[in-house]
C-alpha cells in the first residue's frame, strides 16, 4: 500500500472511531445535555428532591395565566399537551410570554408546583410579517406553533396579505 493511501485510511478510520465514541458518550449523557424536561418526563421521574434545581419546558396553557393575591406572583401552567405542571413565578415575564407560547422555567419543586426563579421564552422557527401571519390564521391554513413552510411553499399566502410596502 502506498504511504498516501495508508494515511488516507488512517484519517478515515480515525474519524469513524471518533464519531462512534462521540455518539456513545452523547447518548449516555443525554439527561445532562437536554436543556429542560417536558412535563411528561417530569411525571415519569420517581421523586424529585426538593433541593434539586430543575428546568421544565412546554407551552403556556391557554387560560391558565393569573396573578396571585399579592399582585406580583404570576401563576400559570406549562403543558406538553399530555401533562401539565403548575408554575409560580415572582418577577417580570419576558416580552414573548403569552398563552400558547413556548417557555422554559427553572426553579425548585414544592409539592407539585414549580417555584420558578427564571422564566425564559422560546420562539419557534417561523419568520413572517404580521399581516401574513394574520391572514394565514384567518384562512385556517396555519395555527400558531406549527411550521409554516408548507403554507408558504404551496403559495397559500393570500394576495391581500402581501405586506404593504411600508416597513
Amino acid at each position: 500500500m502506498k504511504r498516501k493511501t495508508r494515511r488516507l485510511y488512517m484519517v478515515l478510520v480515525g474519524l469513524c472511531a471518533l464519531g462512534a465514541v462521540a455518539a456513545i458518550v452523547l447518548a449516555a449523557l443525554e439527561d445532562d445535555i437536554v436543556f429542560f424536561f417536558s412535563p411528561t418526563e417530569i411525571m415519569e421521574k420517581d421523586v424529585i428532591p426538593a433541593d434539586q434545581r430543575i428546568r421544565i419546558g412546554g407551552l403556556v396553557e391557554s387560560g391558565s395565566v393569573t396573578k396571585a393575591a399579592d399582585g406580583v406572583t404570576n401563576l400559570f401552567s406549562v403543558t406538553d399537551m399530555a401533562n401539565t405542571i403548575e408554575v409560580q413565578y415572582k418577577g417580570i415575564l419576558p416580552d414573548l410570554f403569552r398563552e400558547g407560547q413556548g417557555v422554559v422555567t427553572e426553579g425548585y419543586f414544592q409539592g407539585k408546583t414549580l417555584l420558578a426563579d427564571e422564566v425564559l421564552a422560546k420562539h419557534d422557527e417561523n419568520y413572517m410579517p404580521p399581516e401574513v401571519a394574520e391572514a394565514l390564521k384567518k384562512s385556517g391554513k396555519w395555527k400558531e406553533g406549527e411550521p409554516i413552510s408548507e403554507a408558504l411553499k404551496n403559495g397559500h399566502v393570500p394576495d391581500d396579505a402581501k405586506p404593504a410596502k411600508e416597513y
Partner: protein
Amino acid sequence: MAFNINAFANPKRFMWLSALLLPWVAVITVLATAAGLYFALFDSPVDYQQGETVRIMYIHVPAATMSIAIYVSMAIASAMGLIWKHPLSDLAAKCMSPIGAAFTFLALITGSLWGKPMWGTWWVWDARLTSELLLLFLYMGHMALLNAFDDPSRGTKSAGILCIVGVINVPIIKFSVDWWNTLHQPASLMKSGGPAIHPDMLLPLGLMWLCFMGYFVLVLFIRMRSEIIASKVRALRLRQVHG
C-alpha cells in the same frame, strides 16, 4: 484520473487564478453588502412575533452558517495537507482559521444580543450554544497550535489533526436542536419541507449570506497570496545571504 486535483495545488497557478478572480469577488461582495444591508435594515418586513428584533437574523444566521462552512473547508484542507502533503492546502487551512473564528465570534455575540430581548437571557448552556462556543475554542486552539512549535511543519501537523478531530463537533452543532431539548429553536432554513421564512425575509438573508461568503473568499485569497509572496521573499533573502 480525468480530473486531477493536484493541478490546483500549484502555488504559481493559484497566484494566477486568484489574481484573476479577486476583482470579481470584490465587486460581488460590495454589491451584495450594499443591497443586503439596504433590504435587511430598511426594506424588509418586521416579524409577527419578534418585531424589529428579527433584523439581527440577517447578521446572525449567515455568520453562524459561515462559521460551520469554514470549519468544514478547513478540515478538508487539513486532511489533504496531511494525506497528500500539498503545501497549498496547509496554507489554506492556516489562512482560514482566523476568518472562521471571527464569524463564530460574530454569531455568538449577535446571538447573545438577540437572546436577551427574545428569550430573556444573554446566555444559557444549552446544546446549540455550548457546541458553537466549543467551535470558537477549536478555532483558537488551531491558531495556537500552528504557532506553538519552533518547527512550523510540526505545528501544521498537530493543528491539522486537531482540526480533523474537531469536525465531529459540526454535526453536533447542526443537529443539537433536533437531538435534544434546547432553548434555541430548530432550523428555519435547512429543514425538511422547505424554509419557514417568508420570501420577503429570505431575500435580505440570501444577500447577506452572499456578502459574508464573498468577504470570506476575498480575505482568504488576500491572506494566502501575501503568505506565498512572503515565503518567496524569504527564499530570495536566504539565497542572497548564502549565495
